[in-house]
């Protein structure tokens, strides 16, 4: 089987199979995983931050970490959630380095323009515009809860924060997000 045929076979294979091949050291299989998951992971990280280049950089670090730790992954079917946890942890490490988690409120001047990720739908544009107005921890919890469909307990496990903290971040962040979206539409 030549390289092109191998790539075609991989692109049609189930993700669990590709994960198993990649865990066994198959570089083509790992590249296929990156190809499949990159858009989703980069979109998630771009929502968490205000800097598209930084989001892509952390996404790249997450994939490298995944390549290094893939043999330790117990269940190939859990790859997506595991990759998301790696990315969230890298994101939190970045925030801790910059002490952004300690900030009580985002300074007015630090609110960046919405990233050029979204093409045109007004709802998406509004969402990205107002997401950056939330505190980093609230933004993380709101995105993981509403965009990724994670439960509060899953978010607590993934971030290492107490369940009560996660619940209050989700509640406060969601309320603020709705208010801000309402203002945008007024």
């Amino acid at each position: 089987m030549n390289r092109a045929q191998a790539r075609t076979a991989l692109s049609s294979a189930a993700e669990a199979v590709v994960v198993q091949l990649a865990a066994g050291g198959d570089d083509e299989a790992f590249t296929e995983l990156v190809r499949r998951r990159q858009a989703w992971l980069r979109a998630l990280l771009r929502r968490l931050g205000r800097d598209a280049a930084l989001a892509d950089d952390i996404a790249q670090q997450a994939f490298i970490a995944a390549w290094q730790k893939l043999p330790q992954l117990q269940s190939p079917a859990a790859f997506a959630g595991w990759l998301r946890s790696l990315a969230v942890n890298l994101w939190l490490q970045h925030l801790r380095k910059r002490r952004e988690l300690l900030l009580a409120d985002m300074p007015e001047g630090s609110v960046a323009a919405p990233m050029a990720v979204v093409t045109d739908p007004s709802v998406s544009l509004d969402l990205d515009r107002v997401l950056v107005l939330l505190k980093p921890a609230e933004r993380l919890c709101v995105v993981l809860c509403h965009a990724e469909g994670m439960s509060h307990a899953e978010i607590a496990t993934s971030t290492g924060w107490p369940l009560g903290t996660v619940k209050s971040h989700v509640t406060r962040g969601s309320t603020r997000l709705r208010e801000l979206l309402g203002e945008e539409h007024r």
Partner: protein
Amino acid sequence: MSEASDDTLRRAFAQAPLVAADETFVASVAVQVGVHRKRRRALHVARTLALVVAGLGLAAWLAPLAPPVQRLPGAGMALLDVPDRVAIAAQGSAGILQADPWLLLSIAVVVVPLAGVAWLLRRS
């Protein structure tokens, strides 16, 4: 917080399009993986070399400490009584090793690093 308002937020997130797939990003990750693989191999080679050098150094350091008579199994045997020599001869090489612990140590000093090298090479 009502479930309906939660649904509104979920819909808002669901309507947002994904980031466009980017082959440059895929290629960039592949390059980084290659760099990490090379770095890991270099680390294994460095560890292997360090292990071999440490093993040889230890052997060189220990060699002068061995009593000269006992360093040769045959000479060591000559110091033993006849019944002991017979018993040791009967036990073969295991007996020789018991009679000359320095030989055992020397073998261990060579075998342990070699086993380490083999293990590291298998892992890389």
